[in-house]
């Protein structure tokens, strides 16, 4: 494996045939097997794979943080020339010193909530290095500046909860960099963050690598993030490293069926359901206690041959710097792949005539406020969180409206109001000529039946106490969709509709995987044969291969039953793929709404533009304009005057007087045509003149 050296000297860390096992009562479980790779100075190595593939275990193994039952089973880790395996923790501490730093997913687990940011950062320097307080303070302020923290000296005085999540993560990264580590491990560093904040943290990763010449190992399940920051990418599957190559090589010329499958099941930004289709990987990651004898991926592989089931393939060099664990890598070229029969786009290109379908749901000036805090015995003025403020839109029969926006923009409250879990404060909501401005408990059974919801979290969507069948039966009984005697058959029919076999009827939720639970949730929502299904981030908690299958399932159901859907997601690629219309929300208001393909090209609302610029695209060849938003989302308790986006808007300069009008007046709705409206002071002509944010290297044929 010396071929990847490229004259970069000794690797900072070198992992050879590493195996990590956890001791359990039923014997050792090998979480990581035969992983071999090097990381050099100034290089970012991305590790990608679905959950349960051993990515995090690998990172913890590198810092020997495996817990009491974890151990390194075989292999070697060499850090700056000395082996880390088989040493006592004291020796390890001395060897490693402060040369390896780690950044976790949730910044609040790394920050002490009762200490000021300055205190915890300075501690790193004063306690371990004996640097004076004054000097440490200056170093910390300087470091906060380097991690793009606005107003570093003031941030030093704050407590962790007083800064936003993105800023917290920057502090954590800054703290990790204080000792100038040789190796920085980042385990899903942006998974808990919003897309615009994520983009800023990823920019920071790139800066760190260049400025500090640090070796970075970045772990993520998100191919887009990996594509944006990595130099080389390792793909892990069931504890094995199955392919590793340069980032461009991995995405353009993947040579392991799993890597190819991962790329194929992601929606491409800008592609819709009419022209493309997602190809899920069938099956699931094998249980580490019950592995197939040959290639671990063989049971799910489209190219599987007899040889695959006989011996477990070893990592081998394919070309310069490209290693793979597939016996047939030379034969499988991604472009030559033909989709299995049956997987073709199921939606026809929309014709202009059916654009004017019937309106199913009409929302006008809807407001949902939450009372905030307690007033003393009703005295004093009550404050309100304006979660949804003056939102209007129509949903057409058989179409999908996608709603995007960062967390706290009010998209969940919006659909909770529609379904009746929250009470509206003002405005109207009319569904099928019925007023639905009331709570669900005051609605009649027909309205309740016709409005159903699919939830976000697969682990809590099902009641753990009852079997799958019981839970799908309940809405059937309640809505009397079918006669009593037919209930069991109807449940089985629904299970089949969501691609689950009959035997799932008696299974308990804990026996199901996340994707299966989500399917049952969908079946339950469909049991009443609803007209409108509200989907609250139904796929965001799922692995990409499962996500593709669930999206395909929802599309098939929509096609078959003509169901109308409102689809919430924070992933712009998924929303674009799934929806006919898209509404972009910011701080309780819709800032742009229109047909899906119109949203993704100019004219944009400046916020949409920033979102598109931030979304991680799983293709390193795509060029994105770099637009980063300043500051954090203002409090919905007291939203900014005029245009709510004015505090962060990068396009104010287009207006005279640097957009003084944005602070004073509520912007007008600018009608672009085709139902595409933009809520902005900037004239349409100027918005039209903007460059597209996403530039594919060559024109995409299908568009």
């Amino acid at each position: 494996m010396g071929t990847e050296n490229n004259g970069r000297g000794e690797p900072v860390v070198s992992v050879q045939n590493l195996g990590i096992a956890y001791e359990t009562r039923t014997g050792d479980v090998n979480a990581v097997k035969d992983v071999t790779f090097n990381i050099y100075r100034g290089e970012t190595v991305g590790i990608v794979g679905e959950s349960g593939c051993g990515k995090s275990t690998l990172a913890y193994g590198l810092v020997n943080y495996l817990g009491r039952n974890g151990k390194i089973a075989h292999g070697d880790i060499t850090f700056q020339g000395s082996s880390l395996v088989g040493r006592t923790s004291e020796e390890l501490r001395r060897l490693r010193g402060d040369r390896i730093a780690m950044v976790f997913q949730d910044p609040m687990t790394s920050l002490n909530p009762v200490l000021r940011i300055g205190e915890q950062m300075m501690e790193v320097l004063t306690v371990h290095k004996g640097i004076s307080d004054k000097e440490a303070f200056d170093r910390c302020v300087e470091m906060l500046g380097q991690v793009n923290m606005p107003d570093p000296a003031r941030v030093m005085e704050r407590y962790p909860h007083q800064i936003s999540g993105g800023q917290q993560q920057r502090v954590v990264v800054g703290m990790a960099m204080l000792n100038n580590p040789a190796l920085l491990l980042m385990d899903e560093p942006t998974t808990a963050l919003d897309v615009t904040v994520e983009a800023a943290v990823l920019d920071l990763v790139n800066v760190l690598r260049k400025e500090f010449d640090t070796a970075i190992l970045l772990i993520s399940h998100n191919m887009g993030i990996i594509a944006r920051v990595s130099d080389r990418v390792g793909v892990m599957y069931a504890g094995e490293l199955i392919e590793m190559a340069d980032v461009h090589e991995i995405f353009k010329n993947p040579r392991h069926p799993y890597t190819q499958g991962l790329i194929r099941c992601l929606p491409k930004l800008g592609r819709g359901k009419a022209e493309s289709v997602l190809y899920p990987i069938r099956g699931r990651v094998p249980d580490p206690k019950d592995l197939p004898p040959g290639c671990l991926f063989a049971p799910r592989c489209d190219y599987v041959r007899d040889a695959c089931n006989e011996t477990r393939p070893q990592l081998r060099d394919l070309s310069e710097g490209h290693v793979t664990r597939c016996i047939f890598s030379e034969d499988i070229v991604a472009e030559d792949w033909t989709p299995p029969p049956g997987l073709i786009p199921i939606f026809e290109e929309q014709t202009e005539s059916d654009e004017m379908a019937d309106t199913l749901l009409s929302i006008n000036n809807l407001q949902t406020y939450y009372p905030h805090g307690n007033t003393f015995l009703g005295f004093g003025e009550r404050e309100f969180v304006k979660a949804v403020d003056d939102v209007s839109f129509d949903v057409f029969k058989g179409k999908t409206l996608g709603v995007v926006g960062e967390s706290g923009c009010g998209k969940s409250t919006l659909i909770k109001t529609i379904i009746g879990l929250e009470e509206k404060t003002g405005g109207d909501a009319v569904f099928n000529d019925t007023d639905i401005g009331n709570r669900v408990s005051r609605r009649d059974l027909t309205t309740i039946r016709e409005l159903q919801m699919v939830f976000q979290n697969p682990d809590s969507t099902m009641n753990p106490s009852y079997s799958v069948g019981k839970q799908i039966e309940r809405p059937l009984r309640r809505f009397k969709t079918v006669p009593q005697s037919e209930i069991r058959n109807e449940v089985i029919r629904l299970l089949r509709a969501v691609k689950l076999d009959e035997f799932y009827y008696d299974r308990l939720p804990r026996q199901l995987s996340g994707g299966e639970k989500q399917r049952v949730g969908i079946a339950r929502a469909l049991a009443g044969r609803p007209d409108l299904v509200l989907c609250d981030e139904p796929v965001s908690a799922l692995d990409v291969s499962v996500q593709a299958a669930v999206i395909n399932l929802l599309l098939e159901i929509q096609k078959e039953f003509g169901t109308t859907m409102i689809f919430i997601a924070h992933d712009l690629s998924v929303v674009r793929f799934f929806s006919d219309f898209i509404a972009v929300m910011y701080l309780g208001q819709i800032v742009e709404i229109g047909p899906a393909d119109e949203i993704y090209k100019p004219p944009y609302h400046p916020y949409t533009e920033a979102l598109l610029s931030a979304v991680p695209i799983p293709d390193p060849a795509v060029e994105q304009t770099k637009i980063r938003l300043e500051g954090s989302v203002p409090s919905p308790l007291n939203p900014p005057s005029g245009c709510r986006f004015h505090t962060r808007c990068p396009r104010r300069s287009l207006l005279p007087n640097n957009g003084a009008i944005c602070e004073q007046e509520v912007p007008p709705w600018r009608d672009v045509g085709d139902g595409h409206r933009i809520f902005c002071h900037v004239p349409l002509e100027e918005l039209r003149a903007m460059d597209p944010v996403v530039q594919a290297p060559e024109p995409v044929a299908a568009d």
Partner: protein
Amino acid sequence: MAVTLPTPNESEQVYRPPSRWEKLKERLEILTNSNIAIIGLFLVGFWLFVALFADNCIISPVQCLFSEDWEATPWIARYSPFETFRGENLKGPSSEHWLGTDRNGRDLWARLAYGARPVLTLAPASIFIALVIGGTLGVVSGYYGGLTDEIIMRALDALMAFPQILLYLVIIAALGPSALNIVLAITIAGVPGIARLVRGLTLDIKTRDYVAAAQTRGEHPMYVMAVEILPNASGPIIIDAMLRIGYAIFSIGTLGFLGLGLPPPSPDWGSMVSIGKSFIQAGHPWDSMWGSLAIASIVVGLNLLADGMNEQLNRYR
């Protein structure tokens, strides 16, 4: 390395729904998987056994309890708890009287064995009633929140403000010592704690998506509470109830010690300790010792059982 194994094909595996027996076995495994729980089960099981088979009452429980003519013959207790042996008072353990005799010449083993009966009926009964009342108040309080929650919880706080022992004394002193009043006192003292626990669990569970799913089906709040919330709170509630039964046994012992337990000459562990304590210095510690040991062993047993179950439940989650 290449062993011939059948290719696992998870989706085509034949799935058989678990039979009733398998479900029961799975439940029991929660107990038998933990060593602590097994010790606890053994201790509690021992006293249950002793209580059940102290005499032949088990053959015909109805007659035994309600018929005047029926006289139970002691089985493992060997003697009646009321039978006095002349000249045998204040004797140490012997082959005749395994644990010795008390000042009236009654067999201590018989007193102990029969004494297990009131303990093992009154304590679970009172906790069961407290569970029904406290559970209902807790789930209603947690589910509705707002003013309902405020009123229920403040009322229970007021009840909690009394020291428990004071509460017992007031109730028993006012109503007189009897089995029913003991149950009443323990129930009243137990309700606030259970309500608090259930309320806390409800607050957590009501944020789950499946509760929202039930609400979007327009289910009645009663349905949501009884079907969606309570079954998922049952684990911690059952474990808490075990501990509470232990405390209730302590309380019954305390009441007996203070002379507020079952009226004499009924066999009662608490009064055994109380009466026996004046003979400890006279070289006859047996009454107090056996009484204390009995109370301690059953409470420890229940605690171990609860701990073991808790450990297993956590492992399941």
